[in-house]
């Protein structure tokens, strides 16, 4: 399944952060690549939503819906917002 980009998780991120986040700045914790959320690489068809760095493929964010709760992992990011 080909990847999409951070625009596709605009709704999800708005739900999590109560704010529009696709234009938010990010910095990859692994390689330092900097770009808006909208330009990150997003894999939607998985047991969770996985967001990766466009330069080094490192995992930046993972969203898993556990029963009725959304679990959010942002450890791969050095900067968000």
């Amino acid at each position, binding site marked *: 399944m080909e*990847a999409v980009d951070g625009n596709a998780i605009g709704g999800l991120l708005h739900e999590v952060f109560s704010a529009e986040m696709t234009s938010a700045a990010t910095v990859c914790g692994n390689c330092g690549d900097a770009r808006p959320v909208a330009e990150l690489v997003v*894999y939607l*068809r*998985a*047991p969770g939503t*996985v967001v990766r760095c466009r330069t080094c493929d490192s*995992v930046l964010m993972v969203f*898993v819906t556990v*029963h009725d709760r959304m679990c959010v*992992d942002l450890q791969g990011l050095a900067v968000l917002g």
Partner: protein
Amino acid sequence: MSPVSRGFHRRRQDPAQTAGRVPPGQYVTKDFPVLSAGPTPHTALDRWSFSVGRGGQQKTWSWAEFRALPSEDVTVDIHCVTKWSKLDTVWQGVSVDTLLDLAGHDGPFAMAHCDGGYTTNVPVADLTGGKAWVAYAYDGQPLEPEHGGPARLLVPHLYFWKSAKWVRSLELRDTNDPGFWENYGYHIYGDPWREQRYAGD
């Protein structure tokens, strides 16, 4: 529950044909959905290898050596944690029993390592006794990259995230450390018949 969308239904197989074979909460599909957490790796066969062991004690096979091992044709049902099940899938691969015997190593736990960095953990008891394979063919054809080719782990009695795509090694460990999805909230074991989807289920 959200309002029902008039006339909308997912694709599903006739329930009468599948009675008793579908774990709770699953629906049967005729498709073979491709789910991925990252880009599809493409490893050339002349650079591919598969290893079993721990630390510096690994038994490693090249592609040619691996394909020369005794293999089996198996027909199994598979169950994805995203709720689709596919019945009577046909695979060809090397039994993990064979690999562990040849490697001369033992459990209690194994971590599968894959091209692209994916990992998943499985108790060795769930990889032996004819319950698991490293599969390189699906439906009579070489396994396609999007489905895990050149080879993937096949552990059909557990949720399919445990059947790691692009597998390159089974690392034997003394502790049941969580792999990729297990780290993000999925169940450490993943028995579809007890509906063990998430940690704590």
